[in-house]
């Protein structure tokens, strides 16, 4: 079938198999490779993107389901000044990544988390990111990054 998805403000159209997953459309058709496939079982969150503004696991959405909808990936984030988004900046400042594999998903999930709760507690950050696994950082600096991006105190 033919699908047409607005990705980061640009309409990407392509002929795909009905069973094509959104994550594959984003990576292979749109050529946007920040969105990763980790577990492929809806568990790790590496494939998180925003669909109509809400975080979803793009390994568990059909490209067909996103036809006519808007997707935002890590590549679509910007700060107000056109530079890094506050979460991107905060992940860098707080050393919230090591290998970086989980980071795009962590950041997209955090965007959604902060949209619903602009000043979360540390526990709310942990709860909000329960669907995102990181094998490197131990999560502490990730929580700090989200606290930093929301203008709150971090724990050294």
């Amino acid at each position: 079938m033919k699908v047409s998805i607005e990705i980061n403000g640009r309409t990407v159209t392509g002929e795909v198999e009905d069973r094509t997953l959104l994550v594959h459309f984003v990576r292979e058709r749109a050529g946007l490779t920040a969105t990763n496939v980790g577990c492929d079982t809806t568990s790790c969150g590496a494939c998180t993107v925003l669909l109509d503004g809400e975080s979803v696991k793009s390994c568990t959405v059909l490209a067909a389901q996103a036809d006519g909808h808007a997707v935002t990936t890590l590549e679509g984030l910007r700060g107000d000044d056109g530079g890094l988004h506050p979460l991107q900046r905060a992940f860098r400042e707080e050393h919230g990544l090591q290998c970086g594999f989980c980071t795009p998903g962590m950041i997209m999930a955090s965007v959604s988390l902060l949209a619903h709760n602009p000043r979360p507690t540390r526990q709310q950050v942990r709860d909000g990111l329960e669907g995102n696994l990181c094998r490197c950082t131990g999560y502490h600096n990730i929580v700090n990054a989200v606290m930093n991006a929301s203008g709150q105190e971090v724990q050294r």
Partner: protein
Amino acid sequence: MIPAAFTYRRVSSVDEALAVVAEHGDDAKLLAGGQSLLPLMKLRFAVPEVVVDIAPLDELRYVRAEGGEIAIGALTRHHDLHHDPVLAEHAPVLARVAGSVGDQQIRHRGTIGGSLVHADPAADLPAAILALDGVLVARGPDGERRIRAAEFFQGPFETPLAAEELLTEVRVPVQDGAGWGFEKFTRRALDWAIAGVVVAGGAVALINMGGTPLRAPATEAALASGASAAEAAALAAEGTSPADEAHATAEYRQHLARVLTERALVAAGR
């Protein structure tokens, strides 16, 4: 992992969905949020020939207080239930339980109807609807029928719904003033319950303590005759036969059911 090939059909009305499933019967599967169906299809545990996408049916996405009841459209997402003001006022237990399904990403897609029809004994919302004595409204080729939650959950992943039927609505009585509690024990974040319990007024329903969500009749009877939370909770595991497997033995699950029930009853003010 990629599902086996199928034909995708997006529908724009309940009638159109019913027409497509009437044509294809068991070869078709309704797709709501896809958070249970797509993982199963990727593992090839489900291999439908036709996938009927009902997610666009916004007319099935609502929460309304109607007299003494709350009507919830089958396609209402867990995230929306979790933040719904009507539920916060009239059935806070349901908002709380919806907030514990999977993670935020899953809650942005998954729907109450999908969770109930999937009928996983380890799922949270089926137990909540059972505790609330909910009624499930289904539409099929012969019109509409209402099924009580107690008759809806028949076995693991087993309900009386036919392939040609669509769940449209769930109805629960308003819970104004009734105490409530919810406890869920998981092995990891975002996980299904090893065991769990939903308390709504004098009703107690257990998660993952058998092939379906179960009421705890001995506990409910003890509560009705004035027993304390501890006395009533001690009876919670009576008559249950939970799974006995690597993550938890049956005996451990029964122990959890008693402990969690006491906590939920205390939270409910018993």
